[in-house]
């Protein structure tokens, strides 16, 4: 698996798209920091970018890579290699190269700006960690979609739809549900609703840092326990890990049964 990972990773690191992605984040970081000169504002803007764009890029890129490397995958399948190592290797190759672009692209301008001397370093590290998690999750989901759909167009369609659903539509439905049932105690429902969507989950993690003053304004006891203590942080991270593990398991399961 490590060999496959290595080749996929280096293949991607040299691809045009990695540069574009890296360049995009580099530019974003530079513009936010040096034209704006306001670290707190930059972190908030970055958060918005990360929870929306990282999943989108992860899904599109994952699906694209899978379909583009189909023949190469077939070549590998004829080699004495386990299927699970081929797909896991490719998956990790994509996910890690995307994460690298993200971390380096954003990290370099921030380091030059003097991040290590600033107290925003924790907020910023949290951003990068959630960004990496989102990349891992959405690339895995993309691989799942691609593995289940031979048709490229269909695969891309589902991938975009998945992103649209988790990034926007889910929250719309979520909001409607909360308003509709506003006469009932809702704090459990709202927390569970958050856990079931990795984008919401990452958003909550960042809220814990940026908007704790507002979150503590709400009365619910479970809310208080969740946001007021490190409990929320721990649960969110555990859920993020589960969100990575489940799609990866499905990749392994699905790839063992697929015909090429």
């Amino acid at each position, binding site marked *: 698996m490590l*060999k*496959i990972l290595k*080749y996929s990773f280096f*293949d*991607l690191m*040299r*691809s045009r798209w990695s540069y574009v992605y890296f360049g995009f984040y580099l530019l974003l970081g530079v513009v936010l920091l040096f034209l704006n000169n306001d670290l707190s504002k930059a972190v908030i803007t970055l958060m918005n970018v990360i929870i929306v764009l990282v999943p989108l890029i992860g899904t599109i890129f994952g699906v694209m890579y899978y379909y583009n*490397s*189909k*023949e*190469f995958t*077939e*070549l*590998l*399948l*004829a*080699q*004495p*290699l*386990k*299927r699970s190592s081929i797909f896991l290797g490719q998956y990790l190759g994509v996910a890690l190269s995307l994460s690298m672009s993200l971390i380096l692209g954003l990290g370099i301008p921030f380091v030059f700006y003097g991040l290590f001397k600033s107290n925003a370093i924790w907020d910023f590290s949290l951003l990068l960690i959630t960004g990496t998690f989102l990349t891992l999750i959405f690339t895995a989901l993309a691989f799942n979609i691609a593995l289940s759909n031979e048709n490229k167009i269909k695969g891309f369609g589902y991938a975009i739809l998945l992103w649209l659903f988790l990034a926007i539509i889910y929250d719309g439905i979520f909001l409607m549900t909360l308003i509709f049932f506003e006469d009932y105690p809702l704090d459990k429902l709202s927390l569970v609703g958050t856990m079931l969507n990795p984008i919401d989950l990452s958003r909550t993690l960042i809220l814990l840092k940026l908007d704790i003053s507002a979150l503590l304004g709400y009365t619910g006891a479970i809310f208080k326990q969740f946001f007021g203590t490190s409990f929320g942080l721990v649960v969110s991270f555990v859920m993020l890990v589960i969100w990575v593990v489940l799609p990866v398991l499905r990749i392994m399961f699905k790839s063992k*049964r*697929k*015909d*090429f």
Partner: protein
Amino acid sequence: MVSIENLHKKFGKNEVLKGVDLNIKSGGIFAVLGPNGSGKTTLIKSVLGMVIPNKGTITVQGENIKKNSSYRHKIDYLPQIANFPSNLKVKELIRMIKDLRNHTNDDHNLIQLFKLEPFLDKKLGNLSGGTKQKVNIVLTFMFDSPLIILDEPTTGLDPISLIRLKELIQKEKSKGKTILITSHIMSFVEEVSDEIVFLLEGKIYFKGTISELKTKTNQPDFEHAIASILTDNHA
């Protein structure tokens, strides 16, 4: 060498293989023939483990291939469409495949044979179809495995390379290897193969030498023999 028993495979509702029994003994060149959609590629891919059969067992050199990947050390496979990661250079691809399998030094001879030296530093994405196919051939033949499977090996090759390929196949045969070929070029099949397997509608319609086929169909030449099978069965 390869034995297939009662092999069934469905893709959705489409039943492609309907109980194939086939025994391929060691040594010699076998051509798998059949009209489009008769299941040639499916059969080959089943042997390679790329397609997972619904029913039936396949053994390669006595080893059951189910949930097994190491038996593929004994197989060299030339896929039909050669499409490699476009960012890799030719020599990197060769190095990588060597890295994934066992080490070999045959690649140098093969590169010389197909005159690939000028392309070694080029990216695969920038190569022509024919050159890619040559790279494909190098990748396949550089290992010394007892079973070689070639899916449409002649695609895109110029006449000189075609001659080289034929020589190569004969050379491998002379080492006592088993070679499995699918092709649409009947003259090529007739020239190289010792025995043919004819697939029709998911079953083996005929297995034997070309002369046996000619006798069976009462046709003077190979191409007509094949054509007569098709017309007889579709009329």
